[in-house]
């Protein structure tokens, strides 16, 4: 297990939040006056991960180069925490030729083969793919692992259950990560899921499962460390469910009328100020550091956005390329 570096966890969470906050601004900046999802420099659906930083940061702090991640429709936090290049990812979100996928993929379809990172907009369909990557790692005799990420809503999809069984049956080095943010668009967990904890489902498939409450980045880090060590050593898959927080709408433009009183307590539950307070209390973080970490993150994100907006667009004819290798 990697040693716990609290400051690094904090920095990475701030970096991700800064990214999502700037994308939020940029996304909405040019969709007015009549809001149109297809308009502006960043068109299309946008699912941001603010509030869910602890899961990505806690898990990815235990990964090494060559480990794989499959992420869902809400991918930015895992992409950034896993080392996907911020410039190339941002250029993709802006639909530019310099983007990770040359403008073909967009924010739900980021592919970074160098970092074995991918995501899919079809719920739970990254689970089987992670099993396959784990299968390849095992057959090649490496100690790499694959991390399959999706929301609590996804855990009711057949592909999730088939994957748990496959991974357990074949002892694949997979870590199933469920981000329980209480909601699947407008449907609360209580209306979608028969089990209070997906850790129970893990035991049904013969693998260890834990549920982590309170969006606690250090608890995620510890649990992921145990699961990843076990997978690397040939012990097979594990499941980690993280009770996290969707700070913003399901997608941008979601008015969240269905969410009710849940909205009132969001600020108090924001994991980043909470973690800053924890670190300050134990003397690991000063006010100066808070400011300089925020400034560094802002500079990095601004540079990525500048890279994206100054990159060329693809041409219409490029749409015909890459159907086949």
């Amino acid at each position, binding site marked *: 297990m990697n040693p716990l570096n609290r400051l690094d966890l904090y920095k990475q969470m701030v970096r991700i939040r800064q990214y999502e906050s700037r994308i939020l601004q940029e996304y909405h900046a040019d969709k007015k006056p009549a809001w149109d999802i*297809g*308009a502006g420099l960043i068109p299309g659906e946008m699912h941001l991960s603010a509030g869910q930083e602890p899961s990505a940061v806690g898990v990815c702090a235990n990964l090494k180069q060559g480990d794989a991640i499959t992420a869902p429709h809400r991918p930015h936090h895992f992409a950034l925490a896993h080392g996907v290049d911020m410039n190339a990812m941002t250029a993709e979100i802006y639909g530019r030729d310099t983007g990770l996928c040359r403008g073909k*993929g967009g924010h739900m379809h980021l592919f970074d083969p160098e970092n074995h990172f991918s995501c*899919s907009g079809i719920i739970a369909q990254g689970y089987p793919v992670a099993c396959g990557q784990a299968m390849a790692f095992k057959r090649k005799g490496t100690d790499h692992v694959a991390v399959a990420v999706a929301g609590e*809503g996804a855990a009711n999809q057949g*592909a999730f259950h088939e994957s748990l069984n496959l991974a357990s049956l074949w002892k694949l080095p997979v870590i199933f990560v469920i981000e329980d943010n209480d909601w699947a668009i407008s449907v609360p967990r209580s209306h979608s899921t028969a089990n209070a904890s997906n850790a129970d489902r893990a035991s049904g498939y013969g693998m260890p499962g834990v549920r982590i409450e309170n969006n606690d980045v250090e608890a995620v880090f510890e649990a992921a460390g145990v699961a990843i060590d076990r997978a690397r050593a040939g012990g097979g898959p594990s499941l980690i469910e993280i009770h996290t927080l969707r700070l913003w709408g399901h997608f941008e433009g979601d008015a969240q009328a269905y969410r009710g009183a849940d909205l009132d307590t969001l600020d108090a539950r924001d994991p980043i100020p909470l973690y800053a307070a924890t670190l300050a209390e134990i003397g690991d973080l000063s006010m100066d550091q808070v400011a300089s970490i925020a400034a560094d993150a802002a500079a990095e994100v601004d540079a990525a956005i500048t890279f994206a907006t100054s990159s060329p*667009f693809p041409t*219409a004819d490029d749409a*015909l390329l890459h159907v086949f290798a």
Partner: protein
Amino acid sequence: MTTTETPTRRITTAKAMAEGIALEMRRDPGVFVMGEDVGAYGGIFGSTTDLFAEFGADRVIDTPISETGFIGAGIGAAVEGLRPVVELMFIDFYGVCMDQITNHMAKIHYESGGNVTVPMVLMAATGGGYSDAAQHSQCLWGTFAHLPGIKVVVPSNPYDAKGLMISAIQDDNPVLYLFHKGAQGLVWMEKNPRSIAHVPEESFTVPIGEAAVAREGTDVTIVTLSLSVQHSLDVAEQLVAEGISVEVIDLRSLVPLDTQTVLASVAKTGRVLVVDEDYRSFGLTGEIAAVIAEHDPMMLKKPFRRLAVPDVPIPYARVLEQGILPTRDKIAAGVRELMS
């Protein structure tokens, strides 16, 4: 029939769909709705607007993200005589539930020698044009129309949306009801004025299997459906200035396909452009060509023309996507070519 409404009542396609469902729910206690976010949210694309407030959680059921489960459950309920209206949020998600659709919903009546019926409606959003990329922008109606046993309807405007919904619910067969996101009249999408129109308040039906002549013309026939009808009507208006008279056929149903209306129009104009937002090969455009060729290829004064997505997945970036969609510019160019 008496009615108290003013003739200018104008509603969106989304609202018209929901109204059609509500009327059937009031009439028939066996009608119920299920799908993701169809309850308080009212459907991501507004297809179940206000139903939850009127009928409650017992008849407007939010489901887990378990499409095989709840579409299959719809089939089971239909087999037992209820009339479920089930929403698959995007048609692109067919991948996770196709077995229930094609091997069960579509085949049970036939397999049972006609002894079992499956009176359900499966509705799903289709189409692109707003950079939702490869997994959320497909039309795919050709795929489903290819499979025997499913009626397929594809309204292009509020009036047909309501009338076809009522017909679909009353039909004793499974009906796939595909609605284009860009034709729903949603406030958060590009505004297409033809997506808001007068619709009578009372119940009425639009027969499944009847195309409409959306605009009469004499020079060129455009055969199309869904949002492309709106675009084709825009183009037809624009081309008047160039002295070109365009007839627009709105297919409205793919299964059954109204070949008579298509053939009558082509016989009149002798020039045909099929506009389809689905993939080009092995689909609707080829089917219409075959219908004409089998009937009388000599009707054509100019070779058959088609405009469809050139067999690539739908790309994300706007310039890429607009490059492959049947936009107004490309439709106009196709018509001009037929006239040259």
